[in-house]
């Protein structure tokens, strides 16, 4: 085979795509192009152990460098694709190099949403997405540093947790009335608020950041709509991700909150595919399109696209799942709760082990499990198999989680 597959993007989805292409038997040339200087690495530890210096850099890499040599993948790192000629099937790199492709895969991920208030460019302000972002923060990650976290979502709260554990003085500002408001119900948000407060983190919900003022000596003052003035040696902003679609759009590929793909990860243009955080894809379990920011989706779409390219079509059909580690708490979520009309709490939040089942018209949509892996597994089985649930049984902790899966 003398076909060439080019992958744009060296994150989790790009790495999985090259692994899966070889596993599926693709014997042509594979080129992985990443705009960061490093080989593909895991992002989840960036807001956790790696930020605190608890994890060596080598441990972050998804595969060792020798692996890419062994499976004969060319990695072009620190390179940016600037344009695509979809007729000639050729990409152009910033360095001037042109490469022809038979199969082109977008694994371009996303970039952080940035603050746009006055003072947003203050030198104390950091974002957290890349290894470079974290390395720029590590020197300030020390006992007594005043850290202000803007955004009480996963990234912000994981950062707050590892910082509190390491003796930083942490304040979280969240615009919504509860933490994790975009992804979880108020019970779960309230639980996370209480565990952060127990760890000494100061949490301010319903609080908007209005501007940032310079206090001198690299200290920022965060001014809120409630008149607070929060002083910070370091500000970490976690207010969401924007999919990197501009290159695809400029090539005439259909995009709508992500690069639009079908269940085989094919875009609107022949021989061009997309995988991972940048895709807007159909999910058969929810019978609608969605864009996900998750390791699981990146991996599964990497497998799907490789099968498509190798003409062994395996349509993408996954119930999404996620995890977040904060303090001694492991949050595992399965499913997407969007549109829920009822929640059922199983167990006692005060015990630091409970689960929340999200339902719509009596059907299970998703489960958040806190230190309750058996409920996570049960939820995954119920959702994957499309089984019915009984609310009375879900609430009854005397029934083992395994027994909730009624086949």
């Amino acid at each position, binding site marked *: 085979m003398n076909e060439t597959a080019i992958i744009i993007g060296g994150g989790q989805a790009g790495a999985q795509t090259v692994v899966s292409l070889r596993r599926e038997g693709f014997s042509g040339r594979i080129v992985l192009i990443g705009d960061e200087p490093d080989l593909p690495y*895991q992002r989840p530890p960036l807001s956790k152990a790696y930020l605190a210096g608890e994890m060596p850099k080598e*441990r972050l890499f998804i*595969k060792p460098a020798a*692996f890419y040599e062994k499976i004969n993948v060319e990695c072009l790192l620190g390179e940016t694709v600037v344009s695509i000629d979809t007729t000639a099937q050729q990409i152009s790199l910033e360095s001037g190099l042109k490469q022809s492709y038979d199969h082109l895969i977008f694994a371009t991920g996303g970039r952080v949403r940035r603050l746009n208030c006055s003072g947003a460019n203050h030198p104390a302000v950091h974002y957290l997405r890349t290894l470079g972002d974290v390395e720029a923060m590590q020197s300030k990650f020390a006992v007594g540093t005043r850290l202000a976290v803007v955004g009480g979502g996963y990234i912000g709260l994981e950062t707050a947790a590892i910082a509190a554990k390491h003796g930083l003085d942490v304040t979280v500002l969240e615009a919504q009335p509860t933490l994790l408001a975009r992804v979880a119900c108020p019970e779960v948000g309230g639980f996370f608020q209480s565990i952060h407060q127990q760890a000494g983190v100061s949490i301010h919900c319903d609080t908007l950041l209005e501007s940032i003022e310079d206090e001198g000596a690299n200290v920022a003052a965060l001014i809120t709509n409630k008149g607070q003035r929060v002083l910070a040696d370091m500000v970490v902003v976690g207010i969401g991700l924007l999919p990197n679609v501009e290159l695809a759009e400029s090539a005439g590929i259909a995009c709508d909150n992500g690069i639009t793909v079908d269940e085989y990860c094919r875009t609107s243009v022949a021989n061009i595919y997309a995988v991972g955080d940048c895709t807007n894809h159909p999910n058969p379990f929810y019978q609608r399109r969605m864009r996900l920011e998750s*390791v699981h989706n990146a991996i599964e779409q990497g497998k799907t696209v490789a099968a498509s390219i190798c003409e062994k079509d395996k349509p993408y059909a996954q119930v999404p799942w996620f995890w977040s580690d904060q303090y001694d708490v492991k949050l595992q979520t399965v499913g997407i709760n969007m549109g829920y009309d009822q929640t059922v709490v199983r167990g006692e939040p005060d015990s630091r082990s409970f689960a929340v089942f999200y339902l719509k018209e009596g059907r299970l949509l998703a489960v958040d499990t806190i230190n309750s*892996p*058996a409920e*996570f*597994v049960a939820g*995954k089985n119920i959702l994957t198999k499309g089984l019915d649930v009984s609310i009375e049984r879900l609430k009854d902790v005397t029934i083992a989680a395994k027994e909730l899966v009624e086949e």
Partner: protein
Amino acid sequence: MIKVTYIEINGESREVEVEEGSNLMDAAVDNMIPGIDGDCGGVCACATCHVHVDAAWKNKLEPMGETEDSMLDLTDSRDESSRLACQITATAELDGLVLRTPTGQH
């Protein structure tokens, strides 16, 4: 360093050296052992580093925790010998350990 042998479903065997304190999922990825994915990076969240531990070694391992026990239920071929490699830490007592990788990770 201890020696750990990973045996694939097709019988192919690879002995690798593992630093004490490392977990056996990381060791497998570092040594390019096929049949172990480790998608979550070793935090017991994905169950894609399922291995079967040879009977002679089973009782020398730290007992499994509740999370590992539950997560193993997601694997396709769980049996009495099943463990998640990310939850096994290399120690001197495990020198010579033999692990078998399953048909596939789910």
